[in-house]
Structures are given as C-alpha cells and as structure tokens.
C-alpha cells in the first residue's frame, strides 16, 4: 500500500510518500502506526504516541481502529487548518 504524509509530518518523516508491505498482523491504522515507527527516527518522531495527527484510508478520514483490509492509500496528517 501507499503511505502518504502531509504538512509537518512530511518534513519530520523526510518523505511525502512511500510504498510499504506491512506483515499480515498489521490489521488496523493503529497497527500500521506502530509498525511504521520502526522504519526511521523521523517516522518514530512524527508518529510518536501522543502526537496530534489523524489518518485517512483511500481519501476518507478514518479512526485509528479502522481495518486496513483492501486499503490502497493510507495518509497521515496534522489537524486541518484551512479556510
């Protein structure tokens, strides 16, 4: 699946997007967050426990317990500040 990062998370991770193949036991967004943290110091910092960020699955905001089954694109981002 493709994982995308926005705003300050993109700077902290050091990537706008990446292709990942998480193992089968990564079933939810929360699982994916924990798994991604191990990829680099930047990932660990951006996705740290207690950091204020949200997620979307295939362009739709999703809670952290949302299942990843069939997901093509998962995005992580800070709270929205448009308008």
């Amino acid at each position: 699946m493709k994982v995308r990062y926005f705003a300050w998370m993109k700077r902290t991770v050091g990537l706008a997007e990446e292709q990942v193949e998480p193992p089968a036991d990564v079933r939810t967004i929360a699982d994916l967050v924990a798994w991604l943290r191990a990829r680099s110091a930047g990932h660990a910092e951006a996705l740290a426990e207690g950091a204020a960020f949200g997620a979307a699955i295939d362009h739709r905001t999703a809670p952290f317990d949302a299942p990843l089954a069939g997901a093509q694109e998962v995005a992580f981002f800070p709270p929205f500040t448009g308008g």
Partner: protein
Amino acid sequence: MTVRVQEEDFDVGAELERLTQANKRIGGLTVFVGLVREMHMREGLHRDRIDALTLEHYPGMTEKALEEIEAEAHQRWPLEATLIVHRYGRLAAGDRIVLVAAGSPHREAAFEACAFLVDWLKTKAPFWKLEDTAAGEKWVGAHEGDAEAAARWEGKAKA
C-alpha cells in the same frame, strides 16, 4: 453544487453573478470570503510579522471532503445553490483564500448554511497552513475555537 480547489485567485463578483444567473429561485445569497490576515506572532523574545503563507492540501481527498460537506448542507437546508472555491499554494497577506456561498429562497437557510459550510470546511477538509516568518517557516496549529464551531452543528444532525 460546485466545489473547486485551485491555485489561482477568484473573482467574487463574477462567481456570484454566475451562481445567481443560473438559478432565479434564489431569494437570498450569503457569502463568506476568507483572507490571509497580517498577523504578529510572539515567540520568546522574537516578534515576527507573518507576511505570507503556503496552503498545502491533499488532492483527491480535498474535493471529496468538500463535496460531502456541501451535500450535508443540502440535506439540512432548502438550498438552491452552493459554491465552495478554496485556493492552495503561496498566498500573501490580503489575498483571498476561500469563497463560500449559499443561496436559498429565504435568508435564514442561506445564513445558517453558509456558517455551517465554513465551520465544517475548517475542521473536515484536508488543508494545512504554513506561515512564512522572518524566523523561518511555522506550521499553523489547529485552533480550538474551530473545533467548537464545527461541533455546534453536530447536535443538529438530521435524525
């Protein structure tokens, strides 16, 4: 119902003209225009003026989110027309950021729907502001008042 996400500026008069000419049942049209305001930020001993910002968004999700917010407004109020135009990219103080318009046969629905669209857009559409200051770049934090403003419409959700 129209949603546009674009880098270029928009002409408020021309946009409203197009909206009302296309539908003569509109009796009241309310409009919100969001602008980049000049701000002063104090951090420690430094005091910076913010002259510009860059708006980032999530192409694909942004349009979908705005269309859902617009559809929700049409579910809640008897609207004849709505329009959301949101810019992205680098914007200077005084530049227009967003145009929201709601047209209805009567003014109450138009006023309420316009406020609803702006409140939900701020908290549910994937945009992020990066401020340019003399000291460098700074990502804008979410404003607590925005979440409260968006939440006041949650209780009024349709049954």
